[in-house]
């Protein structure tokens, strides 16, 4: 009998700490599937963020480094410049990339570093009990915006991908989601393209993934996935933002 579905070799056979319905597990799997398909597991060096994916190295079966919060692209750059022939990516949440590490991601993209960034945007700080993130939608209730995000007090949800697309150093930026099977396939294609770009030396690529956080959205997993399509994609439209 032919085996048609199996765990990717790059993904360890261990339970994860992620909550039920969390998008990280899906993105981890997609990443590992692509890494296996491209045959680059032994060439990959990943940099894990501070945030929910902080111990992603417990799940990925390739070389990984930790990074101080938000400095993830700097650590990735230091590794890539030392080993230009390796495939280096950072995996960052919206607190890591859009708040404390805003400066680092902008300048890494602006230098056109030949690395790949996976930006998991779920609009809250999941690791620290669901505080408001720079990407939290207007009106969204979090533990630091209990009446909903108020733009007068809290400012507006920041669109990092559109902001980064202004920079000549950024070559490929696409926003995807894992809200349904069709979108998951599109997300996988974007992940593949972003890694292939690096293998071909094309420069800075970033894939933003709109990802559900049922726990801190206060929704069931099913409703959380529906919220992505109904609300998140209205503010954060899906699709290729830049591809040159």
């Amino acid at each position, binding site marked *: 009998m032919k085996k048609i579905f199996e765990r990717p070799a790059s993904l360890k056979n261990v339970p994860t700490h992620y909550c039920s319905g969390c998008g990280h597990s899906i993105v981890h799997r997609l990443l590992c599937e692509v890494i296996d398909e491209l045959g680059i*597991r*032994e*060439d*990959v*060096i990943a*940099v894990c963020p501070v945030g929910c994916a*902080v*111990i992603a*190295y417990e799940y*990925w*079966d*390739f*070389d*990984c*480094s*930790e*990074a*101080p919060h938000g*400095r993830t692209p*700097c*650590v*990735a*750059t*230091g*590794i*890539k*410049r*030392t*080993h230009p022939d*390796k495939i280096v990516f950072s995996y960052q949440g919206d607190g890591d990339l859009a708040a404390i590490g805003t*400066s*680092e991601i*902008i*300048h890494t993209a602006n*230098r056109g570093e030949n690395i790949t960034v996976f930006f998991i945007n779920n609009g809250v700080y999941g690791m620290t009990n669901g505080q408001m993130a720079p990407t939290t939608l207007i009106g969204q209730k979090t533990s630091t915006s209990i009446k909903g995000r108020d733009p007068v007090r809290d400012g507006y949800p920041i669109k990092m991908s559109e902001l980064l697309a202004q920079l000549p150093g950024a070559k490929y930026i696409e926003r995807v989601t894992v809200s349904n099977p069709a979108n998951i396939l599109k997300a996988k294609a974007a992940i593949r393209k972003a890694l292939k770009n690096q293998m071909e030396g094309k420069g800075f690529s970033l894939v933003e993934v709109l990802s559900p956080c049922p726990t801190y959205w206060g929704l069931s997993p099913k409703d959380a996935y529906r919220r992505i399509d109904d609300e998140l994609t209205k503010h954060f439209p899906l699709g290729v933002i830049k591809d040159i």
Partner: protein
Amino acid sequence: MAKIMMCGNEVIGEAAVHAGCTFYAGYPITPQNELTHYMSFRMQEAGGTFIQAESELAAINLVFGAAAAGARAMTSSSSPGISLKQEGISYMAACQLPAVIVNMMRGGPGLGNIAPSQADYFQATRGGGHGDYRTIVLAPSTVEEAWDLTHLAFDLADEYRTPVMILGDGILGQMMEPVEAVRRHLHGKGTGLNPNKPWALTGCKGRKPNVIKSLLLGEGELEELNRILQMKYGKIESKEPRFESLYTEDSDLVIVAYGTTSRIVRSAISKARREHLHVGMFRPVTLWPFPETQLQKLARKTKAFLVVEMSAGQMVEDVRLSILGQRPIHFHGRAGGGVPTEETIVEMIRDILKPRSKKRVYA
């Protein structure tokens, strides 16, 4: 051999290349800019990487990445910038990553000024960032010595897998002095003395994946890391203290000074010796590990100590911890960019060794 003139900042850059440094990241700040300028073209010539970082935070974390990947890596800054780098230095100490950090100190606190200072001694020798860790701290007093200590810094960093700091000041960084050793190596490639680093991130071909991390959530795991770090620091404390003694065999007064200040003290001692005053100097070359035992031994031979620093009194605490009340310890310090003068030090030597009246004795 003919000598050439170079400033301390440039010499540290050239020595780093010669020691096999292949990665440098820095951010502009006076008085260490000559080092960043030098590395901007020299790393390229030597086939390494130079990145002008967007911040001190970025610079230290670029170095973190390069060090994790196995490169000999360096960053440099001056006092306010070093405060920013402390986050990364703490992470590197915890992740046991070797790197060299240069601090050409300036007057503080705050933005301070760009005059020479030694006011970052506490920060450098006590770890500087969060958590229980130490960095080895080397304090050159001449441009020539900066060449030697830069090599030593990379070797110690790799041997102990720990960040090493070179602590100088604006005078050492910017003053030009004749240098012999450097000449042989100018415009050559580095020797690439990178030792084998089986823990480095190089891709997991033919081995199990390597992980560089400091997050240890399991029961007792972080305590175990701390135990390992403290064992390492204990070994460094017993093996690596370095110092220079001058006339300490026959001195009634030993002046303790490091870096630039030790040069002023040296001149003051020459002058005092011409007046037949029995004064000597003990110059710590490693500020951490502080040469405590070696200084303690002098307490038996000498009558008093005088500590001279460009700070309000920082190293003097380590001297007190070494001498443990066995002898009086006098102090002269100038903070905020003030530089002790030879005249003041000579006058203090006279007053301590031949007090003319009680009120002039310094304590």
